[in-house]
Structures are given as structure tokens and as C-alpha cells.
């Protein structure tokens, strides 16, 4: 029962005044960020990370985790009232949330989203508390080969579950890894990849420069280009009596989706690099598949809202599990959190549970508290968020640009990095328009140094023999899982072609 006493300590830590304040501000900011189309948890965390250096690391990560949570709740608000997903994690919520709003039941959809998010968050945090110490103790035995195999698994997840163009995904991963290799070669100490001899590259490319460039500048320009400022919103009449009635209806008609979403989301979240977006989409798919009335999905079925909404919250908690226990982020947002932890001088990975128990359990405790506050703030302020969504984008966008430029500078205090960030931002806009996924690049730049180090250390251990990755059982298991994930889209495409070939044969 060691876990319970740790958890009690953690809960106590997370309700300390500074941390509680961070949680409340964090979930509110997160709700807003999630609700604004074009901004998601990853944008918020990337842009705001540089300003959290003001508070101690534990409070800073609690703040950022609260933003992550809040954004999962907030994404639903614009999916339902505007029909535009507030974040990629809320894409699946528009499928049934928007039809409900158009039928005049926006309040029901919003209440379902809030309650399902809470259910998903709670189920996953309980699972998290049980699994985390166990996984951390297993991970203590990991050597460099296991870590490298795990990285390959993370990258294979992007190819397997990312549902993006495969060559473009692979390109994106490799670009991130190459950018991480800029600076010095760690083993020989020789300068490496100093592009065009510019000395600014000697200190490497900070992951925040890429993350802020992609999410602060590139995505904002993309949003301005794709929405063209034309947004129409649906009203929701939020009375207390109505909310309570809708909450009852939500539990009666949406419990199935919530159960599926909470459990599935957590396990998809744990997969390295998968995160909340595939979690929500898969939960929607499974809920539809298992439903007695799958045809009602897409026309405003409560389970179509509750499944993805519980899954995205559940997955966001789940994705913290590999980040804390293995040092491998479970999603793009946790990749940025991981980079932040390194800046704060904390080494993510299994040792964290032994060396920094107060930090780890304080963070876990804050998940419980954040989840509660996100529900309360969300339900209480829905009308306010809908009002804020009408704020012209021409005020929000320049503020984001200013924050990005300042954040890019504050990360390294070098103007070279601000120019680089701007370059990444404009490049990201063009690549985004051409369907290149960019999250893999951000994840790869965070993992890059560890990936190279673990590869080269493994090969030093084995005196240059590649077989080291296949002879150690855990490493072999990770590689097999990675290979299976990598092949999934090819197998699906092949089977589809096969089936359509059979269909044409029958038709003939």
C-alpha cells in the first residue's frame, strides 16, 4: 500500500497554494487554447513553456499538464458550437457534436463532452497510478539497446497510426532527427552539420525553436489561410436546470461511449508517440462498430460525442506514462513537456521515481485535481468561452506571433534562433499545405539526442555488432511490435485492393 501513501503525499503537494493556483490558471488557459480553432494543447505548451521558468519546476510542469488537460476539454467547445475542431484532438467530436448543435441540442453535446472528459480523465488517472510505479521498476533494467528499440517503436507508431502519407511521415521523422544532430558530435566532440558555416548552429537547434516555429507561426498562418475569417457559431442556452437534465441524459445514453473511450484512449495514449488524436479517432470508430445502431452515428448520437471526448482525455493522461517512466513521450505535447523537464534539470525515465518522488507524485496528484477543476471551470464558463470564440482572429493572431518571437528568443537568448524559428514557421506552413505531417519532426528532435546516443552506446557495448538489438529479449519484442505497426498501413492497403479486385470480378 505504498502507492496510497505516495498518492496522498502527491495530492497534498498539488493543493499547496502555488500549485493549486497553477492548476486553476492552467486549466482555464488550456480551455481557452483548446477552444480556439488553430490552437491545441501542443501549441499552448510550446508557446508558454519559455515563460514557466518563473516558477519552480514542479509547479511549472503542473501548470503545463493542466493546460494539456484543459485543452482536451476545450477542444470540444468549438467542435460543437462552430463545427471547426478547436484542436486536432477534437476532430472526432465534430462528427456527432456538430449535428447535435444544429438540432438545437448544443447544450446536451457540451454537457456530454464535459462529463465524458471527466470520466476519461478519472479512469485513466486511476490506471496511471496503478501502472506507473510498476512500469518504472521494469524500465530500470533497460539498457541502451532497449531504449533504442523503444525509439524505433515510437517512430513506427507514427507510420502505423498516423494515417498520413507514409513517405512524408518518414521524411518528417528524419528531418527532426537530423536537426537534433546539429551542433557537436557527442562522442568525438567534433563540430557537426554547421550549415553554411553559420556559428549559430554550433549550439545546436533547440527543440523549442522548431516547436514554436511549427506550432506558433506555421499553424497560425495555416489557420488564417484555411478559415479566411469566416466562422459562424451556434448558441447554447446554459441554465443550471437544463444542465442537470442533460447530465442525466448523458449518463443514460452516452455511458457506452464513455466506457469504450476511457479504456481504449488510455492504452492508445501509452503507445509511444500516438497520443490523443488517434486515441479519439479510434474510440469513435470502435464505439460505432459496437453500437446496435451504427447508422445513427454522424447524425448526433450521444455515444459519438462521449467516446472521442473521454478518449482524448484518457489518452493525454496515458501519454504521460511513458514520458515519466521510460523517458519516451507518448504524444507531441508530452514531447515538449519532456524537453522542458530536461531544461529544468530533471532526467525523465525510471530513475525519476527514485530520485524525485515528490516531483513525480506531486504531478500525479495534480492530474486528479486538474481533472476536477477542468470539469467545474468548463461547465461554469461555457457561455464565456463561446463569447470569447467570437473575438476576431486579427487580435489573437498577432498576440500569438509576439509570444512566439519572444518565446523563441527566451529559449536560447540568441537572435539566430529567432530567424531560424521564422524560417521553420514559413517552411512548416508550405509543408502543412502539402500534407506533410509535422508532429513527427517535433517528436524526433526531442528524442534525437537520446536515439543517437543509445544506438552508439549499444554498438560500443557489442563492439560494433548489430545483433545486440535482436539477442536481448525485451529489445527484440519492441522491434517486433515496431515492425508490426510499421507494416499495418501496407497490409490494410493491400487487403483493400484485394477486396476491390474481388468485387470487380463478381460484378463482371
Amino acid at each position, binding site marked *: 500500500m505504498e502507492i496510497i501513501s505516495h498518492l496522498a503525499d502527491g495530492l497534498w503537494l498539488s493543493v499547496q497554494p502555488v500549485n493549486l493556483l497553477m492548476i486553476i490558471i492552467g486549466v482555464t488557459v488550456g480551455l481557452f487554447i483548446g477552444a480556439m480553432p488553430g490552437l491545441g494543447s501542443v501549441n499552448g505548451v510550446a508557446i508558454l513553456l519559455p515563460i514557466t521558468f518563473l516558477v519552480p519546476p514542479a509547479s511549472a510542469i503542473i501548470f503545463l499538464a493542466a493546460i494539456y488537460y484543459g485543452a482536451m476539454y476545450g477542444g470540444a467547445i468549438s467542435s460543437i458550437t462552430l463545427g471547426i475542431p478547436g484542436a486536432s484532438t477534437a476532430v472526432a467530436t465534430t462528427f456527432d457534436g456538430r449535428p447535435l448543435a444544429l438540432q438545437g441540442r448544443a447544450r446536451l453535446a457540451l454537457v456530454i463532452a464535459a462529463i465524458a472528459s471527466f470520466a476519461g480523465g478519472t479512469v485513466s488517472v486511476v490506471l496511471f497510478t496503478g501502472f506507473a510505479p510498476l512500469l518504472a521498476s521494469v524500465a530500470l533494467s533497460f539498457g541502451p539497446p532497449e531504449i533504442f528499440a523503444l525509439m524505433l517503436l515510437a517512430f513506427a507508431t507514427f507510420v502505423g497510426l498516423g494515417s498520413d502519407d507514409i513517405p512524408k511521415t518518414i*521524411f518528417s521523422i528524419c528531418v527532426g532527427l537530423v536537426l537534433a544532430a546539429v551542433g557537436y558530435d557527442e562522442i568525438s566532440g567534433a563540430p557537426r552539420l554547421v550549415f553554411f558555416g553559420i556559428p549559430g548552429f554550433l549550439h545546436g537547434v533547440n527543440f523549442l525553436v522548431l516547436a514554436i516555429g511549427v506550432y506558433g507561426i506555421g499553424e497560425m498562418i495555416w489557420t488564417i489561410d484555411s478559415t479566411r475569417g469566416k466562422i459562424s457559431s451556434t448558441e447554447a442556452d446554459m441554465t443550471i436546470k437544463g444542465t442537470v437534465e442533460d447530465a442525466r441524459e448523458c449518463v443514460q445514453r452516452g455511458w457506452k461511449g464513455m466506457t469504450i473511450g476511457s479504456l481504449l484512449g488510455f492504452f492508445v495514449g501509452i503507445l509511444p508517440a500516438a497520443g490523443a488524436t488517434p486515441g479519439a479517432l479510434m474510440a469513435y470508430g470502435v464505439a460505432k462498430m459496437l453500437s446496435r445502431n451504427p447508422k445513427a452515428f454522424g447524425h448526433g448520437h450521444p455515444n459519438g460525442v462521449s467516446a472521442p471526448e473521454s478518449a482524448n482525455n484518457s489518452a493525454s493522461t496515458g501519454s504521460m506514462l511513458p514520458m515519466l517512466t521510460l523517458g519516451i513521450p507518448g504524444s507531441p505535447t508530452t514531447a515538449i513537456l519532456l524537453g522542458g523537464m530536461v531544461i529544468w534539470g530533471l532526467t525523465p525515465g525510471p530513475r525519476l521515481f527514485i530520485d524525485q518522488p515528490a516531483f513525480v507524485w506531486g504531478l500525479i496528484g495534480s492530474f486528479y485535481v486538474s481533472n476536477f477543476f477542468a470539469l467545474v471551470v468548463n461547465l461554469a464558463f461555457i457561455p464565456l468561452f463561446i463569447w470569447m470564440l467570437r473575438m476576431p482572429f486579427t487580435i489573437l493572431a498577432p498576440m500569438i506571433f509576439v509570444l512566439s518571437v519572444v518565446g523563441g528568443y527566451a529559449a536560447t537568448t540568441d537572435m539566430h534562433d529567432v530567424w531560424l524559428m521564422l524560417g521553420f514557421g514559413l517552411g512548416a506552413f508550405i509543408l502543412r499545405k502539402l500534407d506533410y505531417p509535422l508532429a513527427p519532426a517535433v517528436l524526433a528532435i526531442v528524442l534525437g539526442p537520446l536515439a543517437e546516443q543509445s544506438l552508439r552506446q549499444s554498438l560500443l557495448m557489442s563492439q560494433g555488432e548489430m545483433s545486440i538489438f535482436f539477442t536481448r529479449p525485451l529489445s527484440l519484442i519492441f522491434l517486433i511490435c515496431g515492425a508490426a505497426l510499421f507494416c499495418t498501413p501496407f497490409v490494410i492497403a493491400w487487403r483493400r485492393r484485394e477486396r476491390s479486385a474481388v468485387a470487380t470480378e463478381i460484378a463482371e
Partner: protein
Amino acid sequence: MRRAELITAIVLALFSIYVMWKSSELNVGYISGEGPGGGAWPFWLAAVMLISTGFIAFNWARRTSPPSQSGEPLLDSYGRKMLLMVGGGILGFVALVNVISMYGAMLVFLIYYLRFLGRHTWRLTLAVSILTPVIFFIFFEALMRITLPKGMKFLEPLFNWLNTLIY
């Protein structure tokens, strides 16, 4: 978009070749008994990048990826104008930082964006444009003790005076 898809693939392929060439300044070979040399990791990653761009070009020729089927331009007239005004604005903002300090550049950028792109009233424009640098100054210089660029020499007296207020 069809043309942009191919041009981008070619540019990215050239970049990959440049990275491979740049990596080869270090040992890209396999040192027996020790593993890969210092340049091998980025060299082979860039090789994978090059192969990926080859596949992207192949998919372009087969017209299987969505951008390669699309007859729309990458940027229509709205997109071109937007990119020029917004991207150019940020470019000007960053260029001004070393001249009139981060705070001054912020002020100019916000006035430009809010008034000339957003067409907001002068009252709102000035309120946001003046308050933002003030808040940033208090936050970074006074609370976090991170100094942002102060621009050229002629602004020194102003910042010296501001520093006496916060220190």
C-alpha cells in the same frame, strides 16, 4: 498544388543531399569494433530522407497523393496576399528587433497588424499595442530577469531609466 508538390520534393531532395555532403565532413563509415563514426547517423538519416523524397516524386507521377491530384494552386490570390502581409509583417518585426529593441518592434508590429490588417479602431489598436510591451517588460525584465534585445545605442538612455524603476 501539383506543381508545388514536385518542386517541394526536389528542394527537399537537394537539402537531403546537402546534409549528406555536410555529414561526410566527419567519418561516415563503420569503425570496426566500435560502431559508426560521428557523421554516420546524420548521413544515413539524410539518405532515408532522399529516398522518401524519391517516393514522394513517384507518388506524384502516379497521382496517388491528394496534393498531386489537386488542380488548385498552392496559394490562391488570398493566400498569396495573406502570406505577404502576415509573413512579411513578422519578418519586419524580427528585423526591427536589433534596431528599436524587442519592445519597440512589438509595438510597431501590433500597430501594423491590428490597424492595417485587422482594421480595428485606433483606440483598441493603441491600447493593445502599448499595453503588450509594458506587460512583457514587467514580466521578463522585472520578474524573470531575462533581458530581451535592447536595440541600438540611441535607446540606451531610455532603458537605463526603465531599469532604475525595476531594480
